[in-house]
């Protein structure tokens, strides 16, 4: 792919031979992932269409690149010198809009001019600020938590007592997940770090994997210690080209601290692969489609082995618990969900970056931490594209699982994307549904067809029939196999509630 810019049947036959997969299965894989679908020229330019880039530029940056380079998204020049594609999301939400030329990601003011001139330069990385005197997550992993471990039973008990809730969106208790796998009679178990959660607007996992890989590896080794696993996989997004090299280096260095075996595997561009069953399919070289549960990964995961799948930030919480215990961890967020939480802000904020905060602050306080939004906040989308949208009138909502859910929103993946005053909320709906439809894995019928129809309702320019939209949202929400289809209605429902006039409902 990298050499010739496209996948040929000869490549597929070779892949089938080497992997032992049937040719048809290899063909199926090669038509699923973004990285394999788009033909590449000698120079391959990718334009980010994530939510933060949309909040910064609408689609103006996409049109500028298309016009300036003379190619539409997904096209390659006849002489194969150049190709242009869409990508979601590069994780430079603090400096949007972002564009990727080869493996150089440029973002922010002047980035589009530079890509047109062929002079991209690496964008600045985001600032990292902890509100804690002793940070839990924004401190370099030093393996001191791993060194402080006692017995697997005690560590598992501590993680359960600490009530670590998953930081990827669902908020499932990590200790419970570990316990399921620990109880399995199969002596071979696997830990998987989900580094392919591509929620547009969130760059928390990117920062942790690139700038603090040892904390993640330490957390994985501890997870392995607690459940009885000796190996683990990190599936890292290909949209973060700095992440895999950073992790590979850290894996070499980690050999000084642990015998736990780490395998770093790069994804190939698919949002739904962030769902755990799809992640496991991807990890095994298959199409990244969702599977019905049961079986849960804890019973049958990677190569049929009991598998714990955890979010990156979740695993990064573990070294602190191993070292300081559950009580100290719980005390970080008094009268709220235990632990600390990373949040990240988009470029519309005065001081965007990754901030480590306790649970229990109000959303307004969080926004003030990041310097507020000079253009004024019209609404926020917190936690990713499947999250409800919080209007400015509800900024005093407490940032924690239950209070966010009570207003149709979520903690989710911790991203805080501001849409400033003047943003067209009909365009927001269309943007989100375009993302939803193009990332549907295509397995379950409600999501495969329903998101295409929901997007069409907003993209066709006419009024949106409210009752048929409501029926479609119900079908998606209650019928879909995974959180992608069942979650996409949440932001649309918020927009119906808070901005009905703008949606053009009839």
């Amino acid at each position, binding site marked *: 792919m990298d050499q010739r810019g496209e996948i040929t*049947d000869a490549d*597929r*036959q070779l892949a089938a031979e080497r992997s032992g997969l*049937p*040719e*048809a*299965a*290899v*063909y*199926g894989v090669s*038509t*699923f992932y973004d990285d394999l679908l788009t033909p590449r020229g000698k120079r391959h330019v990718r334009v980010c269409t994530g939510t933060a880039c949309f909040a910064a530029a609408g689609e103006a940056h996409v049109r500028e690149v298309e016009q300036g380079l003379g190619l539409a998204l997904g096209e390659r020049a006849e002489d194969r010198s150049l190709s242009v594609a869409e990508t979601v999301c590069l994780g430079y939400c603090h400096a949007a809009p972002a564009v990727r030329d080869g493996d150089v990601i440029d973002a922010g003011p002047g980035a589009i001019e530079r890509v047109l001139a062929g002079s991209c330069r690496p964008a600045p990385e985001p600032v990292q600020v902890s509100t804690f005197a002793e940070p839990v997550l924004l401190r370099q992993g030093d393996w001191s938590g791993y060194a402080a471990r006692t017995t697997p039973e005690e560590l598992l008990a501590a993680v359960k007592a600490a009530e670590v809730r998953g930081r990827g969106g669902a908020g499932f208790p990590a200790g419970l997940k570990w316990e399921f796998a620990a109880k399995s009679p199969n002596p071979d178990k696997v830990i998987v770090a989900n580094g392919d959660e591509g929620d547009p607007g969130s760059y928390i996992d990117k920062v942790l994997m690139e700038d603090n890989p040892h904390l993640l590896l330490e957390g994985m080794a501890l997870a392995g210690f607690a459940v009885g696993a000796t190996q683990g996989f990190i599936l890292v997004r290909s949209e973060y080209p700095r992440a895999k090299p950073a992790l590979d280096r850290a894996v070499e260095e980690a050999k000084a601290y642990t015998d736990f075996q780490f395998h770093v595997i790069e994804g190939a561009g*698919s949002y739904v692969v962030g769902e755990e069953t799809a992640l496991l399919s991807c990890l095994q070289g298959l*199409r990244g*489609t969702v*599977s*019905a*549960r*049961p079986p849960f990964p804890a019973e049958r995961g990677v190569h049929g082995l009991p598998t714990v799948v955890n979010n990156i930030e979740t695993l990064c919480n573990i070294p602190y618990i191993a070292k300081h215990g559950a009580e100290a961890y719980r005390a970080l967020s008094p009268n709220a969900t235990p632990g600390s939480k990373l949040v990240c802000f988009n470029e519309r904020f005065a001081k965007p970056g990754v901030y480590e905060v306790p649970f229990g602050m109000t959303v307004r306080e969080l926004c003030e931490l990041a310097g507020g939004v000079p253009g004024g906040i019209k609404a926020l989308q917190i936690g990713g594209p499947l999250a409800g949208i919080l209007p400015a009138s509800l900024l005093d909502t407490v940032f924690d699982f239950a209070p966010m859910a009570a207003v149709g929103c979520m903690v989710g993946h911790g991203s805080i994307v501001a849409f400033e005053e003047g943003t067209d909320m009909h365009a927001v709906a269309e943007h989100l549904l375009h993302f939803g*439809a*193009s*990332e*549907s*894995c*295509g*397995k*379950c*019928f*409600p999501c*495969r*067809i*329903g*998101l*295409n*129809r929901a997007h*069409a*309702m907003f993209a066709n320019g006419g009024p949106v*029939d409210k009752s*048929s939209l409501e*029926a*479609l949202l*119900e*079908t998606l*929400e*209650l*019928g*879909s*196999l995974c959180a992608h289809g069942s979650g996409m209605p949440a932001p649309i429902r918020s927009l119906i509630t808070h901005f009905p006039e703008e949606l053009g409902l009839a």
Partner: protein
Amino acid sequence: MIDITIDGEAFSVAPGTTILEAAGDRVPTLCFDERQTPFGACRVCLVGVEGASGPVPACTTQVRPGMVVDTQDPTATRVARSVVELVLSELPGPPAEHTELAQVAAQLEVGEPRWPGARHEPVHDERHPYLAFQHEWCISCGRCVRACDEVQGTFALTATGRGFAANVVAGLDEGFRASACVACGACADTCPTDAITELSLLRLE
């Protein structure tokens, strides 16, 4: 044995039994074939379960002691009907009356599509001496792929594409004839829309 209630009737079934296995024909299905592993894709087998937060798929949900199942749950039926309505809206026209899809649509009394939109472009493979594939009728239920993998063991078919563009192809999208297909016909036998059918039947029409 596990005691459950379905539509007010008492049942005693073995552990590991799914709701669909216990309830049988009273639950409509599209992506299910009893010879294959449940797939959970079509969501037409949704039923109500007392205490559940929403409708549950009967094909992939195992019974639990004391479970109370309502196959006529209004919400579950409404969602299942909408799903079939979506499926009909992506096809070039009404499915032939003898097909499973047409029968399920009739059983659920599916009305006019409320969400019109893109349909699949006609792509026909009639190069094989016995098997024909009309891709625009494919609803990505995966039954043909599982028939080939699990029943026949030939692995000649695959799901392809993603999202609305998902479909099924043989081999390296080269048609049945050039693929590993052994012409067993299991795919045509299980197809609920006649997207894959026997060429001779197609020529009769």
